[in-house]
């Protein structure tokens, strides 16, 4: 098995995901299926092939440095579960080290 339960739990923690013990079994199976397939691809010799950085063939999609209108403050805050005085409000973030 390319990926262990411990590794899945670590990734889940980093991605802030939660799931039950039962789902862990299922996830583990699915992920390992995918990764086993990737293992198969690894057998191909890619020695002299440049890494694919992007699936787009083009480069340089750029825009001019011109200001367009932003959202109103009200609109910007619409989806926030909690706001206060025009700020998004979240549980206290401890300023580390101070």
């Amino acid at each position, binding site marked *: 098995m390319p990926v262990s339960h411990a590794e899945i739990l670590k990734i889940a923690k980093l991605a802030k995901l939660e799931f039950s013990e039962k789902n862990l079994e299922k996830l583990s199976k699915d992920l390992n299926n995918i990764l086993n397939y990737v293992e198969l691809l690894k057998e191909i010799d890619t020695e002299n092939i440049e890494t694919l950085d992007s699936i787009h063939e083009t480069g340089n999609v750029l825009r001019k440095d011109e200001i367009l209108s*932003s959202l109103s403050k009200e609109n910007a805050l619409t989806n926030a579960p909690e706001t*206060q005085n025009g700020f998004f409000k979240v549980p206290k973030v401890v300023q580390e080290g*101070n």
Partner: protein
Amino acid sequence: MEAVIGLEVHIQLSTKTKAFCSCKTTYGNEENTQTCPVCLGMPGALPVLNKEVVDFAIKLGLATNSKIAEKSIFSRKNYFYPDLTKGYQISQYDKPILENGKLEIETENGLKSIGITRIHIEEDTGKSNHSENFVNSTGLDFNRCGTALLEIVSEPEIKTSKEASAYLAKLRQLVRYLEICDGNLEEGSMRCDANISVRETGSKKFGTRVEVKNMNSYKNVEKAIDYEIARQIKVLENGGKIIQMTALWNADKNQTIPMRTKEDSQDYRYFPEPDLVPLLIDENWIDEIRKTLPELPKTRKERFTRELCLSDYEANVLTSAKELADYFEKTLEISKDPKLTANFVSGEVLRLLKETKSELSELKITPEKLGKILTLLQTNKLNLQNAKKIFDEIAQNGSEPEKIMREKGLEQSLDTNELETWVSEVLAENPNEALRFKSGETKLQAFFMGKIMQKSRGKANAQLVTKVLLEKLK
């Protein structure tokens, strides 16, 4: 023991809009009025790179002799923190836009070149508000979120806190010359982190390093680095071990304080940003930018010493900022006297800026007006004292040099008759001093000069007065 220091400097680019969306980047605006679906990280919103960001990066690349990548790509740096809307920061990882540059700094032992490992484009985060308005909560303002940054990573070739602040000052001077960042450490448009380790002097092996953040002034950079070096040496001398960590500089307590680190926090799981295409830069683009480069500080300084015969010190002061050097050269166009102009600009003008806490562009005394004053001084219409008087008058109230000179009767008198009268009167009024002078007490000359100048209301030409005075006291 010796210290090994590497600096990571973030500069906020002074583009009008953010890196990947068209929101404006104004500092200090009302909170959450400069956001859009892209910088708020709304699902489905797509980033588009601002060309100006690339132009600015190329400028810095050329000015630091960096290798400009033909192809660079953007990556996602994944971590969760409330000031980051998307759960990842768009940055560059294994293919940054610039690599292998250098920056020359001045040290006590002469010039030293500090290598620049890499410079990459990334986006800024929002700002947390921890004020007492938020009880058991934190307020978030995303006006800054998505603003373009360049992260400049130095080689670990810096040895002392003095070298570190010299490097920072040089970098600040450079980005201000290039007009790509305003270099304001206090407002955070330039931020500096330091990687510090110590080792036996001459050793090739690096010690365990500590990353120090949150140093928002040159003074704090020096203090934090000195503190951390001393702390590490002490730990090692007592037989202890340095623990790799990130610490914050606390300016109130004057010490570095370890950040509480979660074990996984450094696991950023970088991967190529699928929403952005590769950035391709060809020679034409680089040439276009090269044409827009201003004369850089080093070249300008060399020209000032070589062509204008200014001292190293004067040239250094005058080229410290682009605006000051521009001001000097505009004044010089009128006055045509490099030495005199250098004296006035590095003396009077800098004093005025300091006293009034203002910017050059705000001064009422424009280069044109200063140039005119200096011309009046050179043609002996004004003496030095009255030239400074007119300078101060214009600095406060504006107006024109010649107008003030006429209105206040400050024009220097070169009329020998008038001079003779002043001198005779002063000698007559102070017969005792005149006698003492004649019997050898020559230091009284200054006394007479003062009296005569007073009588002439500053209009007398000092050289002429000296001549007439000594003649009469023979």
